[in-house]
């Protein structure tokens, strides 16, 4: 595990990457319905 300071420093960047990945996956799944 990374240290507490790194955990705090990366908290929002990690959340952003996770949400952006989920959004991209959802967009990919929705693609066939949109075309």
């Amino acid at each position, binding site marked *: *595990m990374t240290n507490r300071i*790194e955990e*705090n420093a990366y908290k929002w960047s990690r959340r952003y*990457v996770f949400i952006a990945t989920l959004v991209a996956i959802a967009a990919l799944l929705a693609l066939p319905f949109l075309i």
Partner: protein
Amino acid sequence: MWVVYVVGFILVVGAYLSYLTVTIPVSAGVACAVYAVGMPVVYVRGLGKVLATRSPELPEPQNWPKPPKDGDPAVLQYFYGPAMADADHAVRVAVGNCQKLWNSGIKAAEESFNTDDMTWFTAPLGVGGFIGGLAGTVVGTLITAVLAVIHLLVVGVSAALVRATGSVLRAADSTMLWVKNVKMVCPHCYERVPYPAYDCPGKNCTNRHRDVRPGKFGIFKRRCQCGARMNTLLLFGSSRMAAFCPHPGCKRSLEHRPGEAPEVVLPFFGATGAGKTRLLFSMVTQLQAWTENGQLKAEFGDSSTARELDIASTLVRSGGSTIGTSVELPRAHIIRLTLKKGTRILQLFDAAGERFYNTDRTQELRYLNKARTFILVIDPLSVESFWQQLPANTQAELSAVKSTAPSPELAYQQTHQQIEAMGVQLKKVRLAVVFSRADLIGMPDGDVVEWARNELGLGNLIRSTTQNFKEAGYFRTAAIMEAGGRMHKSVAELMDWVMAREGVELPGVTS
């Protein structure tokens, strides 16, 4: 009777075959669906654990990036390594979870053959499940790979954007410094400061950051290893932190908040006892007078300057003598000048006259090639031919203040050659030639140049300064207070000329 058995057997076999025909494909289909969907779900859950929930049971990340050796004591920016390490971590977590999923399937298939009386019933389920599991794993792996690629794409695009933003911000900051003509010089080591180093503002933290600009440790802010956050650019207010010279041999404090305003380097040079320090003191006193009148704001840029120049106005007012300047390498006196049209940081270098008599000592004054305007101070009394012309009673009166140093031409030639040797094109810089002690020898009407040529016999020096420099100004100054507590107007005239060439409009002599 045997016919009944045969028919019964055929019916049982047919029923079992029908059971197999249905069971195996159905269980295979279910297993295939479970694996095809389960693996991507397991991957996404792993991703969630690594990126969002950070659950404590997470295994240690492998390949975690190490901070660069000799780098600043700061936490790496997420997209400069840790994001890829997290991607790797998420894949490892997902592989581990998929392994568990696969093992549970294998175990279920094995158990379907070990159910004693019910093996005939459960074994087809196991066979179908195994076949379906294999097919589902292939499909699940492909889907998971697509998800992993999407994750990597998100990381890659974000990293590219973050790095591009960092480069744009660095360029914007450099452009801002260039537009504002901010070129920082260390007042201690005289080196150009591309960017100041800063101490961490955290409590009890002594970490020093050599280059806080956007990069691998942060774009808008960086985080010190102690956890404190720091601004990365002068644009964002990094100058409010404690600044230091970034050069390894220096590392001394830059209290004057470099980077906020253009710096004006003003070297004084001339023979020993020529009146350089007194002129400097009188210029400071004049600035203080303008400040008191509310015409500008001049303040000492650091504690060292405050300590050394605090006595300036008292000394000038009292008419007392300045103490001889130490032959040590000078540290710049820093004055922050706030005017209606902006702020300037004056760096006034007052080196001892002894430093201008030989090459080795002059060479050490590396601030000379950072200046655009120089101030040469000459004591007319030190010119022997002029001294000899003075009446005996005047000589007796002034002998105590007369400089005993060698001819002023020696200091001029030495310094002028050294400035050139330092790569300065004299045709691009200006020189103020200041004849001091006008209060003692009087201020005859007429052109200063003619007076210097005819009365002082400094024709060669005048010719050289006029020919070599872009512009030369000639002044007679009296570093004294007039009745009413005003500095002699000659000081303001000199300052007007010097600062106007640096783009600074001073209030002028009317004050």
